[in-house]
């Protein structure tokens, strides 16, 4: 299991190849990549702030939770902070399991925790407008749907 917080870009291909090479007997590997989207067509960049003393521990905790809950063979989380431009990868998750459904559920679960419980905040910076991204009710609902989820 590995959880990393970093400002620099990560090499998705290299990360997945290394992740798969380490796993001994997984029949299923799922990855998720989150990318900066420019819906308005005028986003200059996204700024991601985080809570350094807390972040990596939180990511590790969620990855371990996912591994235990779904019997994963392995899990990987990488999350960036700082300035990111449209099209850049913000973060990635990879899960390996003997069976497909566990790999999918583990990645989905991990993402629900990262969305609402990992100490990151996103700010969208356009030429004439700056706005902190608001959390979504759906994200809390998705988290609450897992039986082990804490109440918000």
């Amino acid at each position, binding site marked *: 299991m590995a959880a990393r917080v970093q400002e620099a870009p990560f090499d998705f291909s290299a990360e997945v190849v290394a992740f798969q090479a380490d796993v001994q007997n997984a029949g299923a590997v799922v990855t998720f990549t*989150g990318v900066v989207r420019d819906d308005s067509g005028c986003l200059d960049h996204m700024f991601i*702030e985080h*809570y350094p*003393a*807390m972040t990596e*521990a939180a990511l590790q905790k969620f990855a371990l939770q996912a591994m235990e809950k779904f019997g994963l063979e392995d899990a990987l989380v990488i*999350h960036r902070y700082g300035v990111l431009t449209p099209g850049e990868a*913000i*973060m990635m998750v990879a899960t390996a399991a003997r069976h497909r459904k566990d790999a999918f559920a583990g990645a989905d679960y991990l*993402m629900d925790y*990262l*969305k*609402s*419980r*990992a*100490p*990151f*905040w*996103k*700010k969208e910076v356009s030429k004439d407008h700056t706005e*902190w*991204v*608001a*959390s979504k009710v759906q994200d809390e609902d998705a988290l609450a749907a897992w039986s082990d989820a*804490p109440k918000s």
Partner: protein
Amino acid sequence: MKLDILYFAWVRERVGKSQEAVDTNAKTAGDLVDELILRDAGYAAAFSDLSAICVAIDQELGDFTTLLKDCREVAFFPPMTGG
């Protein structure tokens, strides 16, 4: 009791600083907010709607009723938007 307070995202922007050391008798995170609000309008603006603010005590998520006993670091921030 001496402790560090950290602010993130728009809470940080409204308060006007990212971190400060305080000496307080607050029993809970809520008490601490009550003290801060009395200081100036920036704090009052930052904490005007507590339902929009999350609390971490010594890097663990808590809430405004969590006791501060023996804690070293309290952080206030909006709901997280990772992923």
